[in-house]
């Protein structure tokens, strides 16, 4: 299960965490999961450089990649991720069928955490472009 909320600012989200209604939402969500202790809560900042995350979330299918970088590779990881995003943006600009929006963001709480979101028209959409660096 994935629960997603989009905020204008990190401060707005953290301010809500002290409210009774937030506690009630958390209680209900925990009741739906078999192992609440394995729950992962992250705030992700998505730069304006890419598509708005809502465009990905509002697509019929959202591809979600949640990754955590190995110790000591963080500095190398983000230039690589940026390069991957540039490649995907070129594919998008060329009119890749079924690809609606994509974005990449970094976790506020964990420097090793990042999220890659893609909005697709359907789960069956075919991507036949060969990756080239």
């Amino acid at each position, binding site marked *: 299960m*994935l629960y997603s909320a989009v905020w204008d600012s990190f401060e707005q989200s953290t301010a809500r965490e002290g409210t009774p209604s937030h506690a009630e939402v958390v209680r209900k969500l925990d009741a739906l999961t078999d192992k609440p202790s394995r729950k992962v809560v992250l705030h992700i900042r998505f730069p304006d450089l890419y598509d708005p995350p809502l465009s990905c979330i509002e697509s019929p299918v959202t591809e979600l990649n949640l*990754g955590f970088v190995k110790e000591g590779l963080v500095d190398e990881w983000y230039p690589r991720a940026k390069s991957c995003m540039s490649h995907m943006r070129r594919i998008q600009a060329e009119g890749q069928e079924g690809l609606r929006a994509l974005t990449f963001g970094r976790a506020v709480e964990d420097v090793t955490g990042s999220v890659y979101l893609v909005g697709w028209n359907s789960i069956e959409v075919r991507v036949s472009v060969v990756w080239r660096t």
Partner: protein
Amino acid sequence: MGTQDHMKIGMQEGHEIIVKESEEIFPFLRDLQLHHVHFERHA
């Protein structure tokens, strides 16, 4: 909130970009979760 439909796109024939991209990315990661999600709106 939504349901997950794991890995279907990546496993389908012809999705070479995902395989190649993964080869570039996997060496950096200690953990990766890939999900395909249908989001439902809740008031």
